[in-house]
């Protein structure tokens, strides 16, 4: 698979995550801002696009369905059909995979990729949990957050960590966001270590509200344009290539993430993210890399998901993600700078846009053109982006590189 046909990303764009601005125009303003920024970045006219793919969290989350026609018309791109993907926080990775297939097959040559979401069209605190199995866990009151909290509790118990891990993780996110003018929490002081390590109840090892406050729910959009590798030289920016990618899944109920009785999940428990692990294995094989080649990573970041993600990506061994974070290895001078835009904690948690935001950030890092130099990873050549869907039961891993073949 190392010889899979690569595609180039030649333009990227994002909407601001300043909620006070974005909420005036809603999702339509956000998608227009992101797409036209990507077109400008590529020096491409809208009429040059010949295909499109879009991800959003889902109809229940934003109150819109059948998005192909309204989206294309909103963007002024009709009659181009923009294929909808509905895969929550990991769908931007599926958007990239779908667009890759279109370009590599020759079906289209200039494909718009878009990932977006809106947090205030409907009551998302209820409906975003429908991303879980809604016949069982959802009805029993076990949503995305509860399932992740069970994973965290199991991780603390198995490896002997405490809330300092998640506190350091959150503070790192704020460090990056404070150096990212597009971040929702740009110039917002981070919660203190005391706030972040305060338990909801003594002995619970679960953070109180102060930590949860750190997750930056906003609406917003990310866009990027993919073309065949051989066309990359036609565009002005340093080319970045999608060299590997995969989407894998694991059982959708949190109770089935312990000793699921098939060979693929043998020995798995709540601290494991096999969907990410399998997707990473395939994506690295396609790209011809190992975890040691990774210069920076973007992972799904609320709570301890980041530590689990670093381990599933192979950047750390099982149980060592917590130490990696405590040792500062996710910082700008660390072994693997992680969530360099501030991540979902402090850049924005925009669900459908999450992996799209990771891809845009990675492209800018690999070009060496991050807006504020303080968070520029020096001499970066390989970036990975990890999506986390529902309870971690779906995951994309995307490998981007500026290396030529």
């Amino acid at each position, binding site marked *: 698979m190392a010889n899979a046909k690569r595609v180039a990303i030649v333009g990227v764009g994002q909407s601001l995550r300043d909620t006070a601005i974005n909420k005036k125009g809603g999702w339509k303003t956000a998608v227009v801002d992101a797409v036209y920024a990507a077109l400008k970045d590529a020096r491409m006219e809208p009429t040059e696009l010949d295909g499109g793919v879009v991800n959003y969290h889902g109809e*229940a989350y934003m*109150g819109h369905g059948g998005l192909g026609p309204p989206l294309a018309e909103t963007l002024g791109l009709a009659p181009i059909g923009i294929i909808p993907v509905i895969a929550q926080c990991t769908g931007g990775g599926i958007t990239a995979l779908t667009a890759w297939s279109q370009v590599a097959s020759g079906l289209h040559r200039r494909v718009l990729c878009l990932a977006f979401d809106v947090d205030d069209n*409907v*009551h998302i*605190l*209820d*409906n975003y*949990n*429908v991303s879980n199995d809604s*016949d*069982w*866990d959802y*009805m*029993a*009151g*076990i949503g995305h957050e*509860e*399932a992740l*909290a*069970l994973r*965290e*509790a*199991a991780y603390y*118990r198995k490896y002997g960590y405490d809330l300092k891990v998640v506190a350091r993780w959150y503070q790192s996110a704020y460090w990056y966001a404070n150096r990212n003018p597009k971040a929702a929490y740009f110039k917002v002081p981070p919660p203190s270590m005391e706030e972040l390590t305060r338990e*909801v*109840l003594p002995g*619970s090892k*679960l953070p*109180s*509200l102060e930590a949860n406050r750190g997750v930056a729910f906003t609406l917003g959009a990310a866009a990027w344009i993919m073309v065949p590798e051989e066309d990359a030289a036609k565009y002005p920016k340093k080319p970045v290539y999608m060299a590997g990618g995969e989407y894998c899944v694991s059982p959708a*109920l*949190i*109770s*089935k993430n*312990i*000793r699921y*009785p*098939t060979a693929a999940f043998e020995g798995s428990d*709540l601290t494991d993210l096999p969907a990410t692990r399998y997707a990473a294995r395939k994506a690295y094989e396609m790209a011809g890399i190992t975890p040691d080649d990774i210069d920076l990573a973007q992972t799904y970041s609320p709570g301890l998901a980041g530590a689990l993600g670093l381990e599933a990506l192979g950047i750390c061994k099982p149980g060592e993600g917590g130490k990696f974070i405590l040792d500062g290895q996710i910082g700008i001078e660390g072994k693997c700078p992680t969530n360099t835009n501030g991540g979902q904690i402090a850049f924005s948690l925009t669900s459908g846009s999450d992996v799209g935001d990771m891809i845009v950030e990675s492209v800018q890092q690999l070009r060496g053109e991050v807006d504020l130099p303080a968070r520029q990873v020096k001499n970066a050549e390989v970036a990975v982006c990890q999506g986390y869907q529902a309870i971690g039961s779906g995951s994309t891993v995307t490998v981007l590189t500026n290396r030529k073949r």
Partner: protein
Amino acid sequence: MSQFSGEWINHDMIFTTFRAWRERLGRYRLEGSKCLGCGQVWFPQRHGVCPKCHGRDLGSYQCPSTGKVEEFIIKDNPFTDLSGTHYHGRGKRVLAMIELDDGLHVAADLEDLSTADVKVGMRVRMVTRKWMRESNSNWQYGYKFVPA
């Protein structure tokens, strides 16, 4: 407001009674499935295929109603009155991963106990309690667990 209830009820998503009825045996008494080919047991009930051997011949299986707490969290949701989750008892709650006596796992709330009394390894038994509301304001019911 619902015409049937004085409580504030959110109707962004309309669930029906039908889906609850389809899964009633699992929700009310932990009835799962057993593969008649390889013998693997499952909860919730499978719908026509065993993922382990891919056999299509499945029978019903009665899960044990007792087990032990393998992991738990104490959830303190501050959005109780605003979240529209329809979930009974939302607010401070104990959510546990329970290993049933046959080794199957179920995630469910623990009730009838103080949060300070929850321990990994404690014995629990299944009860039927309120889950969420249906679109007609009726409560859906399902499994929860209490100290054995």
